[in-house]
């Protein structure tokens, strides 16, 4: 019976949202393949996550400790888990494909001389490992086989629906000191800068977004007004950032931000596949476009076939009128 080592992501002891996905995924995979799931907690501060492990039904957790693991560092985290993996020879080393998840797994794979499969949706074992993974940020899928004993794999973010399965006894916590080369200190976080405590593009419940059809930087004023009125944020397409009309921080899509608002209002955006993958998790989409054949129009739940420069100011007026 093999083991699944699962990385529980945290920042200085506080669980990240992906931790619940990772633990759920490990529990379900373990059940499907008769394996035992083992949580990996990196750093002394992560010992407190023992309770989270129990809530998600993971009976054993290793807490790896070292003076070099007091804060995140990709090399130190990667090397620490590599040490544990060499000792236990797990069948699967698992994480969720966040920035840190994919980065740490890439380090482990490089250090162990094994393949690494990022952003998977399905994992099966026949004669070989069989994995379906995302290419193009999820616009295309790839089935691959991996010819190794140990599979190093991340699930795509939000590919697994988190679900609790509380244990009746506490998770057994095994603290293990790891001996890390002091050289690895070089990539530990030195400092942090907080820019906003408020609503961000990825957390906003309304996103009013503009594309090439907006025509200029100034053309965004009515979109900003509408976003402000609704307590939302302004987004944009890559055509807009490439033209220098808005900062890349506002870009929605494969190489921008992935959003999941209650409603996405896409104005003058054609809906290229690389834009769509960033917007498709929106609960509702309203496209405002002069072209009734535009990709975004055919994919959106709601559409207005008209000039955005006329529609948006009218919407702003209507919102104000109803509120008065």
């Amino acid at each position: 019976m093999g083991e699944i080592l699962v990385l529980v992501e945290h920042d200085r002891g506080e669980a990240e949202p992906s931790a619940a996905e990772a633990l759920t995924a490990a529990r379900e995979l373990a059940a499907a393949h008769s394996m035992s799931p083992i949580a990996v907690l990196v750093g002394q501060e992560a010992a407190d996550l023992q309770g989270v492990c129990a809530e998600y039904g993971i009976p054993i957790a290793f807490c790896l400790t070292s003076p070099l693991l007091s804060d995140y560092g990709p090399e130190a985290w990667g090397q620490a888990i590599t040490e544990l993996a060499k000792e236990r020879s797990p069948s699967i080393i698992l994480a969720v494909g966040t920035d840190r998840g994919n980065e740490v797994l890439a380090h482990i794979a490089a250090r162990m001389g094994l393949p690494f499969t990022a952003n998977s949706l399905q994992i099966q074992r026949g004669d070989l490992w069989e994995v379906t993974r995302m290419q193009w940020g999820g616009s295309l899928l790839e089935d691959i086989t991996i010819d190794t004993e140990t599979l190093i794999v991340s699930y795509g973010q939000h590919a697994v629906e988190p679900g609790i399965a509380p244990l009746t006894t506490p998770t057994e916590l095994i603290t293990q000191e790891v001996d890390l080369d002091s050289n690895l200190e070089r990539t530990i976080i030195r400092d942090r800068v907080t820019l906003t405590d408020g609503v961000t593009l990825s957390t906003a419940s309304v996103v009013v977004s503009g594309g090439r059809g907006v025509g200029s930087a100034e053309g965004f004023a009515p979109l900003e007004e509408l976003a402000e009125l609704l307590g939302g944020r302004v987004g944009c397409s890559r055509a807009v950032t490439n033209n220098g009309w808005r900062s890349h921080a506002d870009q929605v899509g494969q190489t921008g931000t992935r959003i999941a608002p209650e409603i996405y209002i896409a104005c003058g955006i054609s809906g290229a596949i690389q834009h769509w993958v960033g917007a498709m998790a929106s609960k509702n989409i309203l496209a405002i476009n002069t072209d009734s054949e535009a990709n975004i129009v055919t994919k959106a739940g709601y559409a207005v076939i008209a000039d955005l420069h006329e529609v948006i100011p009218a919407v702003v007026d209507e919102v104000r009128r109803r509120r008065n």
Partner: protein
Amino acid sequence: MRILVCVKRVPAPGSRINVRSDELNVDTAHLGFTTSPHEECALEEAAQIIEEHGGTVTVLTAGPTEAEEQLRYAASVGGTEFVLIPNDSGHDWDPEHTADAIIQAISGLEAAGGEFDLIMFGNESADAGGYQVGVRVAVALDRPVVNGIKGIDIAEAGFTVRREVDAGYEVYQFPGPAVLGIREGINLPRYPTMKGRLASKKAEITIIASEANPGRQTKVRLHQPEERITETKILGDSADAAGPIVDLLDELGVL
């Protein structure tokens, strides 16, 4: 500064990515090609660094002969030296294969021209999205590496780099030689100038054949994700749609 930037040639699809009947490749018959966006920004960053600090920017790609197009483009936007590792197999190499080929090429380039102070990758390639080639190269060379970089400051002591997180950024600091995975948005890449276009015509491309071997990961099939079929409700065709739009906002509880 001696900088190396690794870039990948990728197709630029529109509303859908079609797969060829062999199910192993994207159908590129009617598509243009481009440099993967994160790497385009890495190249721009490298060009800005040598404009300020002096030095060279070597641009390297592993790919088909046609990838020369991306190297010539790189010459028009600030690259100074160009390396193609030919892959005429008709398929992308797997990530271990690509990394090994790049590692071997780097060792040759460094033996001949000195160590690279900085090696830059994209955070992930736009098509395969393996999230690993840069890390593999850095681990093999035992150099510090951090991904997701959206800011670089250079001082005597080395590199101070910023990585974006939800509410701000994390700061990392290490001496060179170093490896960075760059994210789009670190800068706005320039367009080629007239002078750049001339440079691109004259660029000499060094070919470095690879002796690297495939890794243990094999592509079986490319296919489309399940598509959500949506019935589109048309709310209007003029500014008069404002009423129904605000009704909808109200219904969704965001008004």
